């Protein structure tokens, strides 16, 4: 073998190696380090952090766990439903579609912190929403969304903000998926007598399954990392896993406890990803000749 072709043979590996090494280091090392931090105290094995996490009156672990799951369970279905509806709406032809599309996906670029601040301006006591309702006379007193005693309203505000901010991602994935379904396929069903519901049921949904799967995985994984929105709107009134990790690390310097939170988020993500991939299967794409 000549020198050039040996070079050619290994070139792709050489090109990929630095990235891979970087990623493996920056993800592998922290995971190992996280385990070490979580289960040691002054260099010796210890369950002190776990003990603190589960039983300390300062720890809001169980609340954080349930609230995170609750938020995910409420937010994701709403997002998927709205995104699906929007994707189908935008799959039709109408005047000004591109402009409308651009406007609808604007939140894609907005960080969670900024989204929290934006919705704070909508919902605060002197915010737009309260002023609007008071001025048209629907309410006399402002509706309070923020403060520990209004926790259900804080929860609602978080849901609203997350739906506003992150539905766009689901929408874009589903819309791209819909666009890949050739219009002919839907029209053919229409010609053969399928009504709107039948077209969705038999043609659109089955063909959209891969996109739906991708959207669900991505959204769910990110939803379990929810932090910025919650921190801006509710602080620790509604504790979430990432928020507690932040709090334990930055405010209390409980690095070990924060590391456990991090590991829990990682474990949940991996499990969820695995479940989704098992659950959804686009059979027609896999069955070979």
């Amino acid at each position, binding site marked *: 073998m000549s020198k050039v072709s040996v070079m050619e043979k290994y070139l792709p590996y050489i090109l990929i190696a630095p990235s891979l090494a970087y990623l493996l280091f920056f993800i592998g090392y922290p995971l190992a380090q996280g385990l070490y931090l979580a289960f040691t105290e002054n260099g010796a094995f210890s369950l002190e952090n776990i003990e603190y996490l589960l039983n300390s009156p300062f720890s809001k672990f169980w609340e954080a766990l349930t609230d995170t799951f609750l938020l995910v369970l409420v937010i994701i279905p709403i997002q998927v439903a709205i995104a699906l509806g929007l994707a189908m709406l935008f799959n039709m032809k109408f005047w000004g579609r591109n402009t409308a599309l651009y406007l609808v996906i604007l939140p894609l670029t907005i960080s969670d912190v900024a989204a929290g601040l934006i919705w704070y301006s909508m919902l605060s006591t002197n915010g737009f929403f309260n002023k609007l309702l008071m001025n048209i006379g629907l309410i006399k007193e402002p509706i309070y969304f923020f403060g520990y005693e209004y926790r259900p309203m804080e929860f609602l505000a978080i849901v609203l903000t997350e739906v506003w901010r992150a539905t766009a991602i689901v929408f874009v994935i589903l819309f791209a998926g819909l666009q890949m379904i050739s219009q*002919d*396929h839907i*029209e053919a069903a*229409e010609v053969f007598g399928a009504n709107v519901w039948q077209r969705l049921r038999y043609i659109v949904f089955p063909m959209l399954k891969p996109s739906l799967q991708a959207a669900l995985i991505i959204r769910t994984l990110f939803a379990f990392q929810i932090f910025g929105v919650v921190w801006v709107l509710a602080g620790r009134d509604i504790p979430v896993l990432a928020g507690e990790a932040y709090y334990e690390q930055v405010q209390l310097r409980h690095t070990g406890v924060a590391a456990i939170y991090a590991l829990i988020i990682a474990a949940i993500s991996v499990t969820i990803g695995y479940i989704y991939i098992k659950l959804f299967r*686009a059979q*027609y794409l896999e069955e070979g000749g």
Partner: protein
Amino acid sequence: MVDVHLKGIVKRFGKTIAVNGIDLDIRDGEFIVLLGPSGCGKTTTLRVIAGLEKPDEGRVLFGDRDVTYLPPRERNVSMVFQSYAIWPHMKVYDNIAFPLKIKKFPKEEIDKRVKWAAELLQISELLDRYPHQLSGGQRQRVAVARAIVVEPDVLLMDEPLSNLDALLRVKMRSELKKLQRRIKVTTIYVTHDQVEAMTMGDRIAVMNKGKIQQVGRPDEIYLKPANVFVAGFVGTPQMNFFDATVEIRDNEIILDASDFKVRLPRDYLPVLQEYNGKTVIVGIRPEHIYPEGHAPTTAKKLSWIEGTVDFVEALGSDTILHLNTGSMILVVKISGSHHYEIGSKVKVALDLSNIHVFDKESQVSLLYKRQREVQLS
């Protein structure tokens, strides 16, 4: 089973006018072919009939029912899409069965019909496969099978045989035609293959640039083309066209082409009278020009000219001569295999009873303009 009427259909896509004022009356149970070059608006016309496009102007009638704004599924039509539109997530069986399932046929009936259609299109062994496991031609046959399992009022087919090999295509042509005769469904069939159009259509509508150029039986389209476009589009090799000046002296008609003169029979006098001194377009098909010794005995009115052999296409069943008459090339078709030396001189006869004359400006046939009033854009 229904008659279909298109009244002044116009369809624009932004600046392009895909269909530009189409009037067409299709009889109940008729097999009509839309024939025309690529991009002339055939698919668009079909989609308007199916209800997939709303025309910008005009109406679509099924019988006396105005269906212009009716959604496709309320029209009881069936369609073979040009792109097939076979659903990739359904097996072939389910693809074909879909229209029946939607119309709530009983299971045994669905099974019977799917098997029947698959048999007819020779795809029985493929029923259990997914579309991505099929070749283009096989997919196309699935699309045809899916369109014929139901009995629609109107069957729309957009180039349904374009992707089949020659042998299968010939067989499918006759199968489809037989089927259509049997179930007597009103059929609108799009193709740009003129052989297909000639052999299958009860009538042919020749289209160009979004307009219908001529509607008629296949033999009418061939023998009495209404304008230069139809004359040139139908028939292979293409009809010979040349400019000639009309000279009428003592009831004698002379067509003066630059290289030669042709004396026309008196029969042409009524139509050519007013063209005295003017230039017209003359057309004659290659099969209506006979070299010495090849003139059929039935051909009476002949006009002889001479030319040099420029080029010979030996097709086996036919021989095509390209004859240089000075400043133009005449294409001559002789049936059978014959040998000609390039450069040799050949005398050929134009069959004057099969000559076509068109107005130079409007390109409309002077002989057959009553067939249909046509304006070219």
